[in-house]
């Protein structure tokens, strides 16, 4: 019971703490840029994700991803790219591709020593986008 209460307090403190701690833990815009640069390197190397990015405008995608991650974490940015459903439409993205990207993003964040708690907070913001990305 004590454990349950402790976890509840942990939940509550997380939900109501609408601060910039995750944005800062990821190194703000500079840190996000490094993570996204490495993510793109990983995406182009991985057989599962390569074909979605090798012919795309990689520089633009990276810029938009940094904007998006920054905005999702409450940072001082505005996402100026297309809607998620528009940018992924017709690409035949499966669950396996989506999870592959998450894994490569985790590896990029690991490389930059981003704490696991901050990593998971960013992933929690991105995960619901699966509805606009997978099988569209």
């Amino acid at each position, binding site marked *: 019971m004590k454990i*349950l209460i402790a976890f509840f307090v942990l939940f509550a403190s997380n939900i109501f703490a609408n601060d910039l701690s995750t944005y800062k833990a990821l190194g703000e815009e500079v840190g996000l840029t490094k993570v996204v640069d490495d993510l793109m390197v990983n995406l182009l190397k991985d057989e599962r994700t390569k074909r979605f990015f090798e012919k795309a405008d990689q520089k633009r995608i990276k810029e938009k991803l940094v904007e998006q991650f920054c905005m999702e974490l409450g940072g001082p940015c505005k996402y100026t790219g297309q809607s998620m459903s528009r940018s992924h439409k017709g690409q035949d993205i499966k669950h396996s591709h989506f999870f*592959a990207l998450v894994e490569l993003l985790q590896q990029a964040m690991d490389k930059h020593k981003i704490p696991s708690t901050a990593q*998971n*907070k960013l992933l929690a913001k991105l*995960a619901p986008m699966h509805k606009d990305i997978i099988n569209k």
Partner: protein
Amino acid sequence: MKFMKFVLAASLVSFNVQAFESSDKLLLTGGVNQLEGSAGGGLTPWALIGGYGTQEQIGANAFYTNVAISDYNLVSTGALVGIHDRVELSYAHQSFDTKDVGTALGLGYGFKLKQSIFGIKVKLIGDAVLDQDSWLPQIAFGIQYKKHEQGKIVRSVGAKDDKSFDFYLAGTKIFLAQSILANVTLRATEANQLGILGYGGDRINHHQLMIEGSVAYLLTRKIAVGVEYRTKPNNLNVASEDAWFDAFVAWAPMKNVSATLAYAYLGNIVLNQDQSSLYTSIQLGF
């Protein structure tokens, strides 16, 4: 039964050749193999479908678990197949070494009680990992068919049957922003000590609803620590039975290997009180 084992083993091998080019679920999101073979924590089945196969893939794993108990030892071995992140088929074989108690019961030192468990689990709704914008957990329904190998012996201690079904409903949610996994499982069962002492008893001889819970903290994407609790029936006059509790650490250094280490408190087992145990498990995936 032998034939079913063979079919399962054969299908594992053929899946291995055809479908395991890659399995892309995230680390630990297929759970580990619980004692009865289903994907879950150590004690409790979760709603997660085992293996690393996504909706387009088939995943599988095999496991070996040893529970070194104060006065006994339990070995559970088996395998599971996760099909399209929707259906899970599992098999486990448990061998319970009675050690000195075997002598006391007139079975002989180290007599082993054995059962087989065939499991099926179907994901009904929700996605524990992806649906981070909803409080709805992933919910799955499962059945474990349990068959004891020594019906005569378990009847002699008061059990009424040498085979039985467990039915369960599990709800599992990963609260990613908090790095927490929570699970609640409701199980209808008449199994005595998981079924190691048979099914039904001279005290109570029908299915009862039991509750099982797990909470885990995801330290990193490769390591989870947590606690589990599982209530159990108390069907036999001769041997009272207690709820089980464990504290575990699960480690997945890579997709095809994971290891679980736990301390489990098992209470009274047959003649011996206050049984505690060291739970070690290794899982190999394809």
